């Protein structure tokens, strides 16, 4: 009976914590605005085909470099393509690269961090030293190096960005597991005969969930930035696919003659990153009673 109660308590904890986070988040105006922006961006990404006024890849050289007007709200680029439609198209790319890369990094990082933290010893040393090696190279430089080797493409950008983000998650999970694994309820779970996997996934990881959610939210903003950076350097998508960073990189030559070709894609990147950062900050404050008071 008491075992059951103990188990229920452990399983209930993350749910109530999530509820608490949600209530705290609702009190934070900035985070709510950010959440609204993110919901809007997801809506645009899903329904992009209905929202684009023009085909994003349709080129009409006769209409190249049109300033923003009633027909083309954000103007047209060097190939006469509608910038507004291309930005809408690019929303799905940026968001999906961010989400998939973070999910990938989160999954691999959680598994590696759990193994390292839970089993300790040589396994821990090997895994964490590998993570240290990856952290020893600035992430954008490592992502660029991966892209140089893998070649262009969205799938490769996801792999590159995902790979370089793994160490952060592994470190968070390992650190949390180290602090939790000696606690009474984990020891109790061991004593009643749960196997290692059950203990990690059922009893330990739910307690790490909140810090992972915060890190993942901030991680999406970093992934969106990195995707744009790779695109800007000409290492991202294959043309003519519309991606925000790639749009900036290709319009660089027209910085003074057609600045609007650079202003709007950059605003889209900044707004997306800002929204995820604000939400991440809001979540962190909601989770940390100390910063809540500040």
């Amino acid at each position, binding site marked *: 009976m008491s075992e059951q109660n103990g188990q229920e308590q452990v399983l209930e904890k993350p749910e109530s914590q999530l509820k608490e986070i949600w209530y705290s988040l609702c009190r934070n105006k900035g985070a709510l605005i950010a959440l609204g922006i993110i919901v809007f961006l997801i809506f645009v990404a899903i329904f992009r085909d209905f929202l684009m006024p023009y085909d994003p890849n349709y080129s009409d050289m006769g209409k190249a470099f049109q300033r923003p007007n009633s027909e083309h709200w954000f103007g047209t680029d060097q190939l006469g393509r509608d910038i507004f439609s291309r930005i809408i198209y690019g929303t799905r790319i940026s968001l999906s690269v961010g989400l998939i890369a973070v999910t990938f990094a989160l999954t691999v990082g959680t598994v590696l961090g759990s193994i390292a933290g839970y089993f300790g010893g040589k396994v821990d040393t090997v895994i964490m*030293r*590998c993570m*240290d*090696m*990856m952290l*020893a*190279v*600035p*992430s*954008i*430089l*490592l992502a*660029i*190096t*991966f*892209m*140089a*080797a*893998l*070649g262009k493409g969205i799938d490769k950008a996801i792999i590159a960005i995902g790979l370089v983000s793994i160490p952060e998650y592994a470190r968070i999970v390992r650190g949390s597991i180290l602090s939790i694994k000696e606690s009474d309820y984990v020891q109790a779970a061991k004593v009643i005969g749960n196997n290692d996997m059950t203990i990690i996934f059922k009893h330990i990881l739910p307690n790490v969930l909140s810090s992972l959610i915060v890190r993942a939210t901030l991680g999406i*903003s970093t992934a969106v*930035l990195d995707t*744009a*950076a790779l695109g*800007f*350097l*000409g*290492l991202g998508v294959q043309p003519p696919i519309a991606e925000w*960073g790639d749009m*900036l990189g290709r319009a*660089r030559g027209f*910085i*003074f003659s057609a*600045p609007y070709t*650079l*202003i709007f894609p*950059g605003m889209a*990147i*900044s707004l997306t*990153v*800002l929204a995820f*950062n*604000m939400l991440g*900050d809001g979540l962190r404050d909601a989770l940390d009673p100390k*910063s809540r008071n*500040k």
Partner: protein
Amino acid sequence: MIQYIIKRLLQTIPVLIGVSIIVFAIMRVFSPDPAPIVLGQHATIEATEAWREAHGLNEPIIQQYFTYMGNALQGDLGTSYYTKQPVTQEIFSRFPATVELAIAAILFASFFGILIGTISAVKKNSIFDNLGMLLALIGVSLPIFWLGIMMIIFFSGTLGILPSGGRLNPLLQPDHVTGFYIIDALLSGDMAALKDAIHHLILPAVALGMYSMAIIARMTRSSMLETLEQDYIRTARAKGISEKSVIIKHGLRNALIPIVTVIGLQLGSLLGGAVLTETVFSWPGIGSYTVNCILKSDFPVVQGVVLLIATIFVFMNLIVDIIYAFLDPRIKYSKKGD
């Protein structure tokens, strides 16, 4: 302390070896064959084979690695596929430009970061605090390259007060002493070159330093808030010391330890950001050069640059750890490596 430094130094060796293996594997195992890229698609099979042989690419991969590392330890990072120049020479001729930019960026970031963070903490929950933290939030959210582009449009295009790119007017080149134009101009007493070099440095340094400034401002604020709540601050105030002195001498001084750590770590990561900033501002450093080499598949150069930056990054972390241990006597050296 010396034991701790030696221990930390020894710990960097496996990390650096690991980084060299990762970078080597990415470049040599996962990358496409560079021969057709360098020689062109119409090169004959014989020519391609001869080129591969000449560059040691037909050797077993492990042997290639040991040859490369053996040479690297003697300062030979190979030869560029395109310019045929030693990679070490190519890197070090551009290195001062990148270091000059990174130092200017970290000076900007530290000064304004600490200033904004301190004001935000002292005037907690005021309009200054909100504005400061909003600026910090924007700073971490703006893509460096877009910020650079917007500054070029505004300061170079609209206002016309700062140059849009490059490092110096070629006509004002000071005598080469250190490769750092500001220092060289000062040494030769060439004020026109000094002014021009500073003018060229402002925009890229601000663009590169903006992210770090935001991080430093946030860290300063939280560290200062914690310090200002301490008893000794209350005691200092009770003793009648002026508020300015309380904040700077008693508050900021004690809050500085985590801030110094962040500054050190940021200096290392600025070298990664330099890749983007240098591209935007046509800054002739190793960042823009690396991007060009990546696009041309000049792998020896990319490998060399990544290794160099990783080495600097690892040593920056080491220095930060040592400074941290030195500044904060509470740190138990034996536990640092855990």
